[in-house]
C-alpha cells in the first residue's frame, strides 16, 4: 500500500501515458493485420508485411495522402510565416487596436468548425468561387484556421524573451540583421517549430471544414471517412503509423538539436 502511495504520481503519469498512446499502438499493430480473407475488419486476423509492402493498393488512398501532405505543407508554410510576422508585430509594436487583437485572434479558435466551414463556403460561393472549389479553397481555409494557433504560440514565446538580450547583442557589435539571426530567431525558433508542427497536424487531419470546401478534391481524412462505410483498408493504419513515427522523429531531433546548440557545438 505504501508503495502505491509513494509512487502515486508516477503511476498516474504512466496511466495517462498508456491512455494517450494506446490508440497509436493499436494502429501500429493493425498495420500488420492480414485482412484479405476477413469479414470483420476491426479484428486482428494474422500477421503480414503485405500492407507495408503495398501501401498504395487501396484505390485513391495514396493520391489522397499526397494531397493532404501537399496542402498540409503549403498551409503550414504560409500560416507559419504570416503568423510569425503577426506575432512580432503584436509583441514589438504599439499600435491602435492592439488590445482588441486578442479577441480577434481567439474567435477563430473558439468558433465551431462546422460554423467556420459553412461560412467559408458561403463566402466562396458569394464571391463566385462556388464552381471552383478544390485545392486552393482548401488551402485558403487551412491557412485561415492555422493562423490563430501560430500567432498565439509564437507570441507567447516572444513575449517571454528578454528585450535586454537583443540590446546586449547590438551593444556587442551585432547589426539589426545579425541580432535577429543570432539572438532573436534562435530563441524564438522552438516556438515557431512548435507552431509549424501544430499547424501541419491541424491541417492534415481536418475533416469538417475541408469537406465543406473541397469540391471534387479528396484529402486523406475524407478518404478514410468514405472508406469507413465499406470497412477501412488496413493500409490506412500504415499511413497512421508512418505519420506518428515522423512526428516522433521531428520532436526528438528538435530536442537533440537544441541540446547540441546549448553545448555550443552548433554556433
Amino acid at each position: 500500500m505504501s508503495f502505491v502511495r509513494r509512487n502515486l504520481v508516477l503511476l498516474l503519469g504512466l496511466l495517462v501515458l498508456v491512455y494517450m498512446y494506446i490508440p497509436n499502438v493499436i494502429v501500429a499493430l493493425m498495420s500488420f493485420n492480414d485482412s484479405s480473407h476477413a469479414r470483420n475488419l476491426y479484428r486482428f486476423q494474422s500477421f503480414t508485411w503485405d500492407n507495408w509492402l503495398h501501401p498504395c493498393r487501396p484505390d485513391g488512398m495514396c493520391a489522397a495522402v499526397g494531397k493532404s501532405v501537399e496542402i498540409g505543407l503549403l498551409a503550414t508554410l504560409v500560416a507559419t510565416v504570416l503568423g510569425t510576422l503577426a506575432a512580432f508585430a503584436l509583441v514589438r509594436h504599439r499600435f491602435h487596436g492592439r488590445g482588441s487583437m486578442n479577441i480577434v485572434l481567439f474567435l477563430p479558435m473558439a468558433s465551431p468548425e462546422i460554423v467556420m466551414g459553412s461560412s467559408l463556403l458561403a463566402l466562396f460561393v458569394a464571391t463566385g468561387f462556388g464552381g471552383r472549389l478544390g485545392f486552393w479553397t482548401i488551402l485558403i481555409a487551412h491557412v485561415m484556421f492555422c493562423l490563430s494557433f501560430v500567432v498565439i504560440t509564437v507570441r507567447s514565446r516572444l513575449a517571454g524573451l528578454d528585450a535586454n538580450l537583443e540590446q546586449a547583442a547590438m551593444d556587442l557589435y551585432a547589426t539589426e540583421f545579425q541580432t535577429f539571426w543570432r539572438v532573436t530567431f534562435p530563441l524564438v525558433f522552438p516556438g515557431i517549430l512548435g507552431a509549424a508542427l501544430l499547424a501541419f497536424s491541424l491541417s492534415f487531419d481536418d475533416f469538417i471544414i475541408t469537406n465543406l470546401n473541397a469540391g471534387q478534391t479528396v484529402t486523406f481524412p475524407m478518404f478514410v471517412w468514405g472508406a469507413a462505410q465499406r470497412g477501412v483498408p488496413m493500409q490506412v493504419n500504415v499511413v497512421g503509423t508512418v505519420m506518428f513515427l515522423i512526428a516522433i522523429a521531428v520532436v526528438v531531433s528538435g530536442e537533440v538539436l537544441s541540446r547540441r546548440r546549448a553545448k555550443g557545438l552548433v554556433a
Partner: protein
Amino acid sequence: MSSVADAPAGGRDLCLTGLRKEYPNGFVAVQSLDLEIPRGSFFALLGPSGCGKTTTLRMVAGLETVTAGSITIGDQDITHEKPYRRPVNTVFQNYALFPHLSISENVAFGMRRRGVKDVKGPVADILELTELTEQANKRPAQLSGGQQQRVALARALINRPEVLLLDEPLGALDLKLRRAMQLELKRIQTEVGLTFVHVTHDQEEAMTMADTIAVMNAGVIEQLGSPTELYENPATTFVANFLGQSNLIGGSVVGVEGGADGQVKVDMEGTVVSIPVERAHTANTVGTKGWVGVRPEKVLIAPAGEPIDAPGNHMTGAVIVDSSFIGVSTQYVVRMPWGREMLAFEQNTGARGVLAPGTKVDVSWRPEFAFLLDSSQDIDAGLGEA
C-alpha cells in the same frame, strides 16, 4: 566597426554635454548633464534609485535616444551613432547573457560580430582572467550569480572597448561576494587600463572603487569629485546626507575674516564657530543663513569640564541621550543645549570607557572639518535613500 579598430591605443576621454532625456510620456529622467570622464579612469555614477543612472548609461551605449545634448569620445561625436558602431560595451544590470549559447560563445560574441577570425586565444585569456575556464562549455543558467556576473564582465572586456559601462553589476550579489567582486573589478580595471563608468546606488561601493564620483539626484549631478573631496567637503545637503552621515545645524554668517583662505564666522545657536572659506558653499555676507555641517566622527566629546583635544569650536551644556557600543567605535547621540540632537562617533582607543546616557558633556570639533551649506536646501535631502 571601423570606429573600434581605429581607436588610438589607450582610449580617449568621454564627454557628455548638456545631455537630456525626456521619455515619450513627458517624464524628464536626465536634465542637462555635463560630464567629462578622463580616459583610463574609474568613474562612479552614484545616486538613489530612479535618479536616471541607467538612462544616462543607456544613452551612452546608444540604447536610448538622446533628447538634447551630445556625447563625444575624443573628437568623435557618437550622439546618434548606432549601438554596434560605438567603441563602448555594457555590463547590464541583469547581465543579459545569451541563454542559448555556451559561456565561451557568449564571450566570443562581440569578436565574432566584428569579424575576428581567431577567437580561441583571446577567449581563453579572458576566461582565465575572470576565473571562468572551468565553466567554458556550460550554459549561463548553469552558473551561480557571481559567475554569471563575471561572464557579463568578460563578454564586454574581451572587446577592449574605450569605455566600459557597468550598470550596478554587483547589485544582485550578497554582501560578501560583493566586497570580493569590488576588489576584483578594481584589480581588472587597473590591469587593463580601460575607462570604467560604474553605476551604483551603494555609496560605500562607489567610494572604495572609484577615482571620481558624480553624485546624481533627480536627473542632475549634485557634485563631482574624488571620494575624499565629496566626503570631507560636500557642497549640498543631499551629498552630505547621502554620502555617509552628517550633523547639520542652522546658523547665520556674522563675519568673514581673511581672503580666499580665510574663515567664515557663523553664529550657531549662540555659539560662534568658524569655517574655512573654501568649505562655505553659501554667499559669505553677514546675515546669510546656512547649515553648519560636521561629520559624526569629527565631533569630539568629553565629560563636562575635562579638556578636549580640539582647538576651536567649543560648546558646553550638552547631554548624552543614547550610546551604542559597536566594537571598533561607540556612537553617541548628544542633545545640544538648543534642543537638537547631534551624532558623535568615537574610536574605542581604550583611553576612556563608554559614557552613559545622562552624562553631561562638552562638544568640540576642529574648524577645518566643518562645512557650510545653503539654507534653502532641504536639511533631510538624501536621507533614507541610500
